[in-house]
């Protein structure tokens, strides 16, 4: 990686017609990827590009491509680390289909993306050319062979001497070429280089001003190089929002939501892809007050949050699949003892260690039916970045109003995806009321279950006359351990009724598209943007397709039964496993359905089909369109 100094000057291999002589081609959207070895800064480059485009007024969605290891082998197919940025004129709600243009720091990481089918046919590839002169003949051969085969496959390959150009400005070009690439991309997408400068200043804001200067120099060099040497240029018209927008990823939005909700204790244990919520929150809490408690394990994190909630305001614990499994006993305790608790599960591929950095929606049924015995809790799923923010405020409120556990499901794709949304305007109503320390009235019981709603107050330590021992054992209204059969059922009934009481307050989710038609696609979580984009496309083609996206899954709002009835066919689209009827052993009787499909089938007795994808990649709108068209073409039974 350090042989750059030995490189002999080489004519630039890019076509000679300078871009400045060509008009920028106007596009409504484009998908660009930057792919590198881990640690080469592709993600920082892409995030900056996304931010610049967002500030220009473009719709953006960024999707990170993350290897599971910190330092996977260099130049390896599996080690590809990078980012995809979808830039559009209109609001962008998902990562979109295949990539139009990719910048790759070596040919190996690119191969992985090509094999995965992530590049559009004929996509433009800007490839670091230093490998052509590498001293290892095997690398030279691999590079040359890959370039040839990519060209043969119809890709338009531009070889770019990234490190050689950067070496003119910095001693270690490997560290700086991401900003050079950012400059190139600013030029290619006709973005204001001044915004680029500002973005670099923001990105490196905490560092030495010299560092900012150097990186701005690299940005300029990249911009100039593209201007001089590339024969194409794009412009994606932007509509500047009239409202302030914020650009953050899903995990940062969750953390900001925790802050905005007034929760001040977050207990966690490091786990991918949830941890960055706590990173951000740790930093913010240092300034605003509150703590992120890194517990000794997931179980302790849950127990700590329960203890904090019991004695004070509602606390939150943030985790992912394996950690969520470990918290189950604690969640059961919180349900049984009626302690408010918010649990965030940023889902990843499972079971077991599975695919820690990849997206999957595999934990829905675990979230709803987890723990043991009958442990009713609230489960809601976020479907976008803005949702991540507001979900924390909603979850905190529900947890404290109903004294129950609220599970918020996000996933690996939302965790690192960025999308602008209107800057939230703080409202003091988002916060919990101050802790009640007033004396408990005579005769009041810690579990004064309302006969209709099952709801109860809770006595917080410090309240005179409220002393009782809270227990995970079956208990009566006085929180006394009770083995009486009636009392056990009374508790079960009331804890279940609370879920119904919440359900009565929920609004029927809106149907996207016409309220009736041939096909209804039902989804939940991060697939919302892709599903609605696919539906829009099919409706433009005249197909009678609509979609319905669920935020509350336990309890499920009223009115869904009626919606389902108005469509000839209903399918769910989910990123979790479902058996395929094409498999020899699989039939209607033994097929394991996708999670939401199973829920809907059992609740509404409707023959709902499902289509799922568990490749660890966000579901693409084009895949949904393909499946839905095929579904519409098959006659229904």
């Amino acid at each position, binding site marked *: 990686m350090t042989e750059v100094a030995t490189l002999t000057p080489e004519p630039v291999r890019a076509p000679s017609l300078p871009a400045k002589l060509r008009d920028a081609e106007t596009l409504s959207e484009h998908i660009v990827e930057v792919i590198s070895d881990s640690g080469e800064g592709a993600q920082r480059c892409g995030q900056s590009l996304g*931010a610049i485009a967002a*500030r220009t007024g473009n719709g953006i969605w960024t999707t990170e491509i993350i290897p599971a290891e910190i330092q996977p082998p260099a130049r390896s197919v599996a080690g590809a680390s990078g980012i995809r940025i979808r830039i559009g004129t209109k609001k962008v709600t998902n990562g979109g289909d295949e990539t139009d243009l990719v910048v790759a720091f070596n040919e190996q990481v690119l191969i992985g993306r090509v094999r995965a089918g992530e590049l559009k046919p004929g996509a433009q590839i800007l490839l670091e050319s230093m490998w052509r002169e590498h001293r290892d003949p095997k690398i030279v051969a691999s590079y040359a062979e890959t370039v040839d085969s990519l060209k043969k496959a119809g890709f338009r390959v531009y070889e770019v001497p990234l490190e050689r150009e950067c070496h003119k400005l910095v001693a270690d070009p490997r560290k700086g070429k991401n900003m050079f690439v950012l400059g190139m991309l600013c030029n290619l997408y006709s973005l204001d280089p001044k915004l680029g400068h*500002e973005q670099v*200043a*923001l990105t490196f*804001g905490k560092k030495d001003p010299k560092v900012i200067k150097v990186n701005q120099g690299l940005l300029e060099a990249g911009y100039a190089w593209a201007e001089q040497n590339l024969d194409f240029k794009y412009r994606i018209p932007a509509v*500047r*929002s*009239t409202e*302030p*927008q*914020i*650009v953050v990823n899903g995990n*940062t939005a969750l953390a*900001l939501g925790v*802050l905005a909700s*007034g929760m001040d*204790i977050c207990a966690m244990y490091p786990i991918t892809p949830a941890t960055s919520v706590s990173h951000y929150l740790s930093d*913010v809490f240092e*300034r*605003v*007050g*509150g703590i992120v*408690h890194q517990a*000794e394990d997931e*179980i*302790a*994190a849950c*127990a*700590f*949050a*329960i*203890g*904090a*909630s019991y*004695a*004070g305001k509602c*606390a939150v614990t943030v985790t992912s699949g394996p950690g969520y499994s470990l918290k189950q*006993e*604690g969640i*059961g*305790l919180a349900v049984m003892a009626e302690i408010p608790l918010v649990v965030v599960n940023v889902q990843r591929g499972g079971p077991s260690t599975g695919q820690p950095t990849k997206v999957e929606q595999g934990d829905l049924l675990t979230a709803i039916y987890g723990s043991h015995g009958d442990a009713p809790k609230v489960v809601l799923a976020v479907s976008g970045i803005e949702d991540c923010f507001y979900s924390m405020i909603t979850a905190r409120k529900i947890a404290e109003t109903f004294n129950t556990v609220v599970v918020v499901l996000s996933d690996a794709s939302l965790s690192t995806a960025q999308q*602008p949304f209107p*800057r*939230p305007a*703080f409202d*003091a109503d988002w*916060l919990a009321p101050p802790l009640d320390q007033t004396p408990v009235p005579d005769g009041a019981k810690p579990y004064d279950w309302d006969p209709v709603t099952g709801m109860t107050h809770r*006595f917080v*330590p*410090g*309240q*005179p006359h409220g*002393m*009782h*021992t*809270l227990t*995970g*054992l079956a208990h009566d209204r006085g929180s006394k*351990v009770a083995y009486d059969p009636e009392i056990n059922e009374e508790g079960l009934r009331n804890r279940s009724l609370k879920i119904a009481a919440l359900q009565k307050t929920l609004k029927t989710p809106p149907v996207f598209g016409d309220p009736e038609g041939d096909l209804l696609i039902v989804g939940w979580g991060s697939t919302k943007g892709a599903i609605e984009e696919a539906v829009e496309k099919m409706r433009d083609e005249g197909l009678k397709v609509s979609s319905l996206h669920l935020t509350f899954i336990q309890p499920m709002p009223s009115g869904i039964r009626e919606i389902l009835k108005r469509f000839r066919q209903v399918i769910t689209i989910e990123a979790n496993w479902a058996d395929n009827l094409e498999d020899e052993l699989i039939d209607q009787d033994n097929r394991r359905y996708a999670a939401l499909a199973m829920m809907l089938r059992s609740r509404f007795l409707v023959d709902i089909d499902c289509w799922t994808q568990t490749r660890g990649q966000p579901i693409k709108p084009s895949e949904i369109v393909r499946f839905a068209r095929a579904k519409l073409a098959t006659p229904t039974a």
Partner: protein
Amino acid sequence: MTMPVTQCLIKLHEAHHNLEDYQGGVPRWCTGCGDNSILAAVQRLCRDENLAPERTVFVSGIGCSSRFPHYMKTYGFHGIHGRAFPIAQGVKMARPDLEVFVNTGDGDCCSIGTAHWIHALRYNTNLTVILHDNHVYGLTKKQASPTSPRGLKSNTTPRGSTMEAMNPLTVSLGVTNASFIAQAVDWIPELLFDVIKKAYHHRGFSFVRVIQRCPEFLPKMFEPWLHDPGRTLLLTHPNGLTISPELSRTYTNQIAHDPSNLDRAREIASSEDPIPVGILYHNPAVPCYDDLRAVSPMRTAEQIRAGLESELDKVTVWPDDDSPVRRVA
């Protein structure tokens, strides 16, 4: 501030507590169970220290020992097996104004909750902890516990348990940040009280192992010690326990031990026979996690708003050119 005399009297009456103010339900422990001695000592401590019942919380896990909170007339949290420590840490972190105690057993603490125990010692949260160590699982009907002596015949070790017992004292004394480690036995109530009182007054994670009898499953276990006071070693020191002359007549086996001496504490702790009773280690200088990481109790809506706005400023795209973000550049 002046106060009418009647109000003063009411205040005085309210502020003064009797033993009954801490006595919850009638304990359901077996007759002769050592848990009863611990309960009596703790209720006495609460009365002597005049703890406000509404500001006192007993947290426990699962097992015979962990029924403890039900028999107190304070707030109580009877949690889940092995997790009393993190629950109690959460309580204390959210509410530093509360007095928080933990009752745990040898299965709860030394088996299923071991990870939490080790880390609780290291966090050094300001909690008073009593390990009710009867060397056997009681509530699940006689299985060997980590502190069961080798050879113990139980329902899961019918030919006798095969491993040496774990020593909770030496384990605790091996953990970084351990700040108060003591031992008592249920059959010397006077010292049991004294040790728990010392533990209560230590600011930090005060760990008291109480060796206690289980009359149901190990009725004869501690008889040799009961019959021979010489097999109990009392640790005395001006910074530890001082033994009354009455007690000294029976328990003559005493040594002076300075609780600040960690190496000596580890040596003494290694002895299973005689059983050491007293303060093994005390270091008031270890910082408490709840002090180091205290949540600001004054976090107002305005502070939260200001904090949020300043975070949002960093990531905002403003519609006009005169934005804070632009000014940064």
